[in-house]
């Protein structure tokens, strides 16, 4: 009996706990019900559907065992989509995070003078993805597009590509837009973290003779490690389940060159009337995102524990 609660009689303490648990349970219940109906149950239903052949409208679903999964394993388009997703993951993290960080540092160092830029840099994130997609479709237009005519006007005509029509280029054209849209998001996350670093740290560092670059690499970055890994996980998961901009700009084409797992799932389930196989793709996507996210989480947690 050394703890401070030792003065409370055990009986009362137990009752207080039960009441507490009950209250917590009641408060959480609506959320649980909501999640069960709209998240858990659909997941279970999707998994079940992935073992059937169903066109999505027929009253009967034909169970086919693992046939859909066998098909998935040898489905070139799915694996191409998976590879495209990985490309987006890698490029998103490599491009969005550093630029986001650079902008955040710029805003942080710039102080009040940069208030206008804070807003301006944030604009892309405020625009609806559909609007962004259509806007860039026009920018990439090979005849009238701003990008093409801009490059030609600058005498850089040799750089002009068939931005959205060339199977080797299209994925990167879209990734550029994704980055344009999401860099502000990471900028804000990093900016918020940067403002949380006390000014004394900086003063102390500079009194000790640190340079700007010393200060950034040796003090700021280690302090922001948690934020950075959070941002990386967000970017990772976002990239794996990416759908909207690709759908608006290319619908995964031409000839699957920019196909993603999510667009492929949508096409199968709703355009080809293969709800069963579409559910298999959805479940595979679910498993892939889950496994990758959990392992990243595990690794970052181990990493941060080792460093504490």
């Amino acid at each position: 009996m050394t703890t401070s609660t030792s003065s409370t009689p055990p009986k009362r303490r137990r009752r207080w706990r039960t009441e507490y648990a009950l209250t917590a349970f009641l408060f959480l219940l609506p959320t649980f019900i909501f999640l069960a109906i709209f998240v858990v149950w659909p997941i279970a239903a999707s998994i079940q559907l992935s073992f059937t052949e169903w066109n999505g409208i027929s009253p009967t679903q034909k169970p086919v065992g693992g046939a859909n999964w066998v098909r998935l394993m040898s489905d070139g388009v799915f694996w191409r989509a998976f590879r495209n997703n990985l490309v987006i993951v890698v490029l998103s993290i490599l491009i969005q995070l550093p630029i986001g960080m650079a902008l955040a540092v710029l805003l942080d160092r710039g102080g009040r003078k940069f208030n206008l830029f804070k807003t301006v840099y944030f604009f892309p994130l405020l625009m609806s993805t559909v609007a962004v997609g259509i806007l860039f479709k026009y920018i990439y237009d090979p005849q009238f597009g701003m990008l093409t005519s801009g490059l030609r006007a600058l005498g850089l005509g040799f750089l002009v590509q068939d931005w959205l029509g060339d199977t080797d280029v299209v994925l990167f054209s879209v990734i550029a837009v994704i980055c344009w849209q999401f860099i502000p998001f990471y900028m804000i996350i990093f900016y918020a973290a940067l403002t949380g670093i006390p000014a004394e740290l900086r003063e102390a560092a500079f009194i000790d003779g640190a340079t700007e670059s010393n200060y950034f690499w040796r003090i700021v970055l280690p302090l922001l490690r948690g934020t950075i890994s959070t941002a990386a996980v967000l970017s990772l998961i976002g990239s794996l389940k990416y759908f909207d901009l690709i759908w608006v700009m290319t619908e995964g084409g031409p000839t699957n060159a920019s196909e993603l797992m999510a667009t492929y799932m949508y096409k199968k389930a709703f355009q080809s009337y293969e709800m069963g196989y579409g559910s298999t793709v959805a479940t595979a996507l679910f498993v892939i995102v889950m496994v990758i996210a959990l392992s990243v989480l595990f690794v970052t947690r181990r990493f941060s524990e080792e460093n504490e």
Partner: protein
Amino acid sequence: MKTRKTSTFVSMMALLAALTMILSACVPAGVAPQPAASDGAAAPAATDGEKVITMWHIQTTEPGPQLIQQAVDRFMADNPGVKVEVEALQNDPFKTKIKVAMGAGNPPCIFPSWGGGPLYEYVKSGQVTDLTPYMDADNYKDRFVPASLSNVTFDDKIWGVPVENSAVAVLFYNKPLFEQYGLNAPATWDDLMVAIETFKANDIAPFALANKTKWTGSMYFMYLVDRLGGPEVFKKAGTRTGGTFEDPVFIEAGKRLQELVNAGAFSEGFNGLDYDTGQSRQLMYAGKAAMELMGSWNISTAKGENPEFYEKNLDFVAFPALPDGKGDPNNVVGTVGDNFYSISPTCAYPEEAFKLLQYIIDDESVKLRGEAGKIPPVKGFTTDDPMLQKVIGMIEAAPSVQLWYDQYLPPELGEVHKDTSQALFGLSMTPEEAAKAQEDAAKKFYGEQ
């Protein structure tokens, strides 16, 4: 430790968001905003013995909604005690919504379709009422152009009523541009090749094509097949009655198509351009492209978007004949009658629903559709618009109207067709590979392996 908690929490939230997204099966973000639609799909509870009929349609561009509404209003005035609830949906959200509604056993009484393969898919799934007895009563079906009924007739039964419009793919061209270079409207394949060379030499794209949309490029392929081998080749392959998608005609059509691509016949970057946002029409309007193979709806689109172009520049001819082709050059590819309206078996009042459909395509409605620049699929329809009258003439003179492949085929095969034809255009598949992919998909679909 704060770090770990935050990242765990954030990751969990992100995971959750991921799951929600995956399993809500991605409501397409890429399409026009849906009208604030109530979920009035279910047969709503009738109040005071009032009969309620729900109807969905996708005629969202003016005057589409009025064309439906005026008929509904007249029907309700003549039939007290029957209430019609009309819901207009955007094209693409509709496709998803109808499937979900049917899968959930909750479809509207009356729903639109394009006939062909997708409608047959609904029919096979027991989601459509057989309308043959209604169509046979008083020979009502004789009101319609025969080609329109063939798109909704499966297993010798009629499953839909053709209502909205007729559209066939024709070769639009920019008249003054042809005059400027001393060219005639291409009547033969040789004419066409001369025109292509001339325009290429003058830095004008011979054809405007926006093939991200896929069905746009498919039109060229369908016409090539039809002109080369006639409609039977496709019919036999599609219905699996002794034909195959590896028929030499399909391969030859693919070769011709790639010849055109290699000759630079299509506008730059065509596989990335989107028809829905007007990227091919802009080329036409700007005089940067000379021709476009497109559905005859392009007439009213141009009239609305660019009246000046419509007045001075726009004209069209039939797709030219191929020198060694077996197909009748009067054949057309297109659709007669869509949208078609069908009645769901869950509908409590099918007789009233059919009566409502008769109002929607009665003489008054036909007249109004004609004024709106449409070609309702009824016999003896004429219009003052010379261009539309020309389309009507083409349809009447056509020995065969080939329905768009992607609507004729079951959806699964339709998608394969669109993908392979886009690949043909992108030169990423040979004609043989494309033909094989289509045939393999058909074999698998019909369980022939």
